[in-house]
């Protein structure tokens, strides 16, 4: 049998959720082990954090005001409202101070006042707009290393292990060294994020191949609302490597001004303060408006429209916006020039079905933290709250409970699967080709969906599974940082996650938030304000819905045309 | 046309590298340039004043700049490190009124004021920019006959970029061009724009010896007959410490190291004595032989 590492709490994922889970579980006295596919605080989407909502929750009224943005605009009534109340209090009372104690500095002015973005959702930054994430995550990273918590970086978890009932650990491939091992854990926290690189243009980082979704699916976990998939409408088109450079549509610090989007004829078609002034999360409205331009032939999904700050004094953009450097690096003037944009597959509102009281799934021993859950869209603050709740709950349960032995057979079978890909041949299909094909399928499914497109996507994914996967072979059998080998494992995750996403989308017979199907072009709150769940048990896909309680806020209309809804 | 500059030789040119001071004056005289040495200028502080107090660094350099301003002409330095200290201070005090006021408060007790009226130059730039290629070429009486020279710039005449954004030093190959103009062949080697290590000699000599040793190795294996440098600190490591480097790296170099003014002086016909070549640790006879001056030191070239 391969090496087995024993721990109380296993945390999988190194973003804001995973790092806080590790720290809070360790604070509770649990032995914690962390596995990160990339590098803590460098991989994943947390480093993209720009400005963080800083709400006044001092009165119930103000708290409800805040809640409206979370529930209506961020989550389209698909979130857990009681969770939002708890998370809001954490954000205000713990989150920012916790990070300052590690050395983050939330920007003040010369008089010591917090420098806030003064839109209807006030926000603060740890540096410049667009550059808070790296600082926040760097401090968490340092704290974890300083405490000497065992960390396995550049190690991919390949499967969750169960004893038939509980999740009891995981198998890991250290792809730097080509070493395969297992971890036996009393509690396991999945925190692999919500922003995967699943379409040709996407903001997901290199390593994000929806492993968390796929692994949970394989052990029978329920997945909810996977189809509530956000797209960014204002990301750089060229160079291609810069598609993750997001030209923020939110207000610039110290002003009420926001960037604007222009179609190919130079007509402005989106500006937050004009077109979605009630929302601090303009993305759903942005892409809705872009879709009209695309239909009118005045923009394409990949180009033919532009973003710019040329109506704002350049001093402001340069002083507060990390993005201003994008302009200068391309030899453009942020005060004059506009940058051509394309859409990107961004983040997912849905995820693993989870009970937000303790961030537990229906599988004993398996917890979820962050954007991977179905309960909330994400964001560095909220997912840190999840990390805290999951970390503490998992640690308490682990300290109280015993460790179950791992099944040698299951570990050996997984080892066989992982090393089965490590075969080289002159021909065959290179894993990257399958990976690119999957991304292409999801890109073609795109923003405007319908039954026909879902079926086409499903057929195409099945074809990859049937025709390409069995032929996968590598160029080399190196066990050290073999990109092809890593791609092969990613392909398996991506296929499962994409199939689940497509099936979930087919089930939802309405449009909502970022999810648009032109065969059901209306919001149907009567039937679809729920968790739309898929799971796979013994190879059979199952689906069900679960109502979402609305103790505080309910939409005014039970049904309205998609293009008339403002959320 | 007579040119006059305020001149700050720095501690090396007045101490361990007297030959730099002598040869600089000798070359300047050929072009009728007056280098008027500042009186009691103190020190730019090398890298040490900066490590003590930023204000001390600004005051010490502001003081030298103020003395030059009193002479009413641009200031010439012959040491890379002095040059950078003076250039950075000059830029900072011109742009930053708060820093300027603080320096002027300290200088007031001597009746000095920094006003920001002058520029700072290296003597290398006086040669390449102010005198210019044309005049230099006209004065060559003893072309260097393909002498294989390895230019070594030193850090502080080229970095940091912010200090040299506008100056001729941004143009690294200035020294390469000068060498070619004098008839020498420029040896390309890994290290010509790297660090000699001088500024850790006082802290951990071994690091400096190894750093400069690798440049010497590269220069020599690429066929260099000598190194030429605009910085007396680099010169000190390469020349005065060369036997130490040889012991540290268990190798043998015997690569002579010239100051820029010496190399220019040779081509312009100045005698080895005028250029004080005998003050080097590594003998320069090989160079003299190559350029046809093995009869030296008896026959000194005529002075202008």
């Amino acid at each position, binding site marked *: 049998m391969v090496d087995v590492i024993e721990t109380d709490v296993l945390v999988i994922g190194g973003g804001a959720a995973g790092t806080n889970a590790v720290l809070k579980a360790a604070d509770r006295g649990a032995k914690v082990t962390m596995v990160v596919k990339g590098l803590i605080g*460098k*991989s*994943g989407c947390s*480093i*993209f954090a720009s400005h963080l909502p800083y709400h006044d929750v001092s009165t119930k009224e103000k708290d409800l005001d805040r809640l409206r943005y979370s529930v209506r605009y961020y989550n389209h009534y698909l979130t857990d409202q009681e969770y939002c109340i708890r998370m809001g209090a954490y954000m205000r009372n713990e989150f920012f*101070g916790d990070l*300052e*104690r*590690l*050395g983050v*500095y939330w920007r*003040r*002015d010369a008089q*010591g006042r917090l420098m806030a973005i003064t839109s209807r959702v006030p926000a603060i930054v740890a540096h410049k707009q667009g550059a808070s994430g*790296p600082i926040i995550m*760097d401090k968490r990273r*340092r704290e974890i*290393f*300083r405490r000497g918590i065992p960390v396995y970086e550049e190690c991919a978890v390949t499967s969750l292990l169960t004893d038939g009932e509980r999740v009891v650990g995981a198998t890991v491939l250290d792809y*730097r060294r080509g070493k395969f091992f297992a971890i036996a854990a009393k509690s396991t926290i999945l925190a692999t994020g919500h922003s995967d690189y699943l379409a040709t243009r996407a903001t997901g980082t*290199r390593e994000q191949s929806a492993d968390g979704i796929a692994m949970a699916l394989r052990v029978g976990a329920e997945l909810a609302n996977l189809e509530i998939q956000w797209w960014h409408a204002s990301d750089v088109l*060229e*160079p*291609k*490597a*810069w598609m*993750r450079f997001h030209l923020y549509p939110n207000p610039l610090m110290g002003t009420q001004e926001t960037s604007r989007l222009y179609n190919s004829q130079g007509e402005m078609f989106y500006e937050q303060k004009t077109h979605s002034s009630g929302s601090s999360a303009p993305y759903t409205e942005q892409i809705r408006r872009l879709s009209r331009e695309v239909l009118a032939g005045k923009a394409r999904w990949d180009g033919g429209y532009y973003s710019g700050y040329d109506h704002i004094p350049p001093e402001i953009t340069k002083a507060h916006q990390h993005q201003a450097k994008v302009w200068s690096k391309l030899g453009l003037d942020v005060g004059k020039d*506009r940058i051509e944009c394309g859409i990107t597959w961004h983040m997912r509102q849905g995820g693993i079905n989870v009970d937000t009281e303790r961030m537990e799934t229906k599988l004993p021993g398996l917890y979820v933290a962050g954007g991977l859950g179905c309960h909330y869209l994400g964001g560095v603050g909220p997912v840190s709250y999840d990390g805290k709740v999951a970390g503490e709950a998992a640690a308490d349960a682990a300290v109280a409970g015993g460790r179950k032995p791992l099944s040698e057979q299951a570990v050996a079978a997984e080892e066989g699967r992982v090393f089965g890909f490590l075969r080289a041949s002159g021909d065959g299909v290179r894993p990257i080709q399958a990976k690119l094909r999957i991304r292409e399928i999801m890109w073609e499914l795109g923003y405007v969906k319908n039954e026909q497109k879902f079926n086409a996507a499903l057929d195409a994914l099945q074809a990859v599974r049937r025709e390409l996967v069995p032929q996968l072979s590598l*160029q*080399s059998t*190196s066990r050290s940082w*073999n*990109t092809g080998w890593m791609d092969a494992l990613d392909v398996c995750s991506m296929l499962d996650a994409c199939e689940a996403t497509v099936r979930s989308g087919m089930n939802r017979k309405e449009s909502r938030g970022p999810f648009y199907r032109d065969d059901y072009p209306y919001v149907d709150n009567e039937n679809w304000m729920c968790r739309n769940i898929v799971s796979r048990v013994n190879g059979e896909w199952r689906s069900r819905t679960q109502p979402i309680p609305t103790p505080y806020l309910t939409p005014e209309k039970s049904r309205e045309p998609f293009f008339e809804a403002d959320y | 046309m007579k040119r006059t500059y305020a001149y700050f030789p720095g*501690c090396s040119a007045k101490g361990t590298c007297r030959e730099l001071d002598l040869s600089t004056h000798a070359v300047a005289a050929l072009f009728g340039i007056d280098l008027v040495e500042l*009186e*009691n200028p*103190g020190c730019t502080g090398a890298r040490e004043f*900066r490590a*003590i*107090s*930023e204000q001390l660094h600004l005051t*010490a350099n502001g*003081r030298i700049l103020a003395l030059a301003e009193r002479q009413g002409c641009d200031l010439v330095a012959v040491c890379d490190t002095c040059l950078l200290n003076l250039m950075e201070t000059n830029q900072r005090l011109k742009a930053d009124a708060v820093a300027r006021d*603080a320096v002027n*408060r300290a200088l007031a*007790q*001597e009746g000095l004021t920094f006003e920001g009226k002058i520029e700072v130059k290296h003597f290398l730039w006086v040669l390449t920019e102010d005198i210019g290629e044309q005049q230099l070429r006209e004065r060559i009486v003893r072309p260097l006959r393909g002498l294989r020279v390895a230019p070594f710039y030193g*850090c502080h005449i080229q*970095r940091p970029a912010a200090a040299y954004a506008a100056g001729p030093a941004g143009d690294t190959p200035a020294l390469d061009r000068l060498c070619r103009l004098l008839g020498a062949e420029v040896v390309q080697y890994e290290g010509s724009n*790297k*660090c000699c290590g001088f*500024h*850790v000699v*006082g*802290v*951990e000599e071994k690091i400096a010896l190894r*750093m400069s040793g690798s440049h010497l190795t590269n220069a020599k294996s690429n066929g260099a007959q000598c190194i030429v440098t605009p910085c007396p600190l680099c010169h000190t490591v390469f020349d*005065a410490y060369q036997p*130490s480097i040889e012991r540290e790296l268990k190798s043998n170099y015997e690569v002579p190291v010239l100051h820029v003014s010496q190399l220019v002086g040779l081509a312009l016909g100045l005698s080895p004595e005028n250029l004080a070549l005998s003050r*080097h640790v590594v003998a320069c006879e090989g160079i003299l032989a190559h350029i046809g001056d093995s009869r030296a030191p008896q026959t000194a070239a005529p002075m202008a």
Partner: protein
Amino acid sequence: MSPFSKQTTEPDKVRVRLYRFDPAVDRTPRYEAYEVPHTPRMRIMDVLNYVHENMAVDFGYRWLCSAKKCGTCAVNVNGSPKLACWEEAELEMTIEPLSGMQVIRDLVTSRDAFEALLATLSPTLVRKAEYRGFPEPLTAIQLAPTAHLRDCIQCLACQSVCPVLKQPDSGFAGPALLVALSELAQDPRDGGDRARLAGEVAQVFKCVSCYECERVCPVDIPIVGEAIEPLKRLVYQAGVVPGARHARAFLDVVKARGYLNAAVLALKTKGLTLNALRLALRLVPRGKIDLGKAFLKRGAPGAKVISKTYESSEEVK
């Protein structure tokens, strides 16, 4: 028609030589040549991705965000470190791993040594008394000295070019670690023993001030002036390591004489060692050390005035 249409004179291809080395099987590195179609505004990362994706080459290269945030994609391009996601592709490129680092495979290098050392430097705020609420009273002015340092994404380009780090067992931490340490040391909230960490653990006085680190920094941090020198000043105040003693002796000599005398400084800093004697024997006959001037003559006539002016500025922070 948009004013932002594509350039009309796009080059048609990029020629790249890729460093290949798998320490587990290869005895020496080799290079593979590829031709990649040029695309508008192409970055180095686009070239690497093309070779991986379109030519299906399984070479090892590391990147995560491709947006200048993670700092993991720095590679040597034609001998100089570049952040692959950020810098424009050149038409002829030899792409190699960062120098001076252990190669894991091909372009991927180990960051382990850096992380291990960072962990020993008390890498988060050390406080005598934690401030429990939020926001703590702090101003932009207090934090201004660290503003540029917070830009660091730890790409390690600076570490890879530092000439001191290239020396075996230099004991020097290198620029990226000093940036991290300096950010904490200059933070008004921090109460850690940063002088000791900077002087003894990071050995800041071994910095040669060559500015190579600044030359390659993709986020333009003034590393020497805003990270390293403030640390040196901190260590100087504590006065514990040889570098600080050297600076003190330097100032003393200049103040006493009105100028620096290298021989006197060396004697004060290092004492009369065998190496110093050897050097003296070499330099005295050449007139490079004037014993009379060093040990008999008094200072320059203006020494007292100079000394007084300096003293008024020494204590100012």
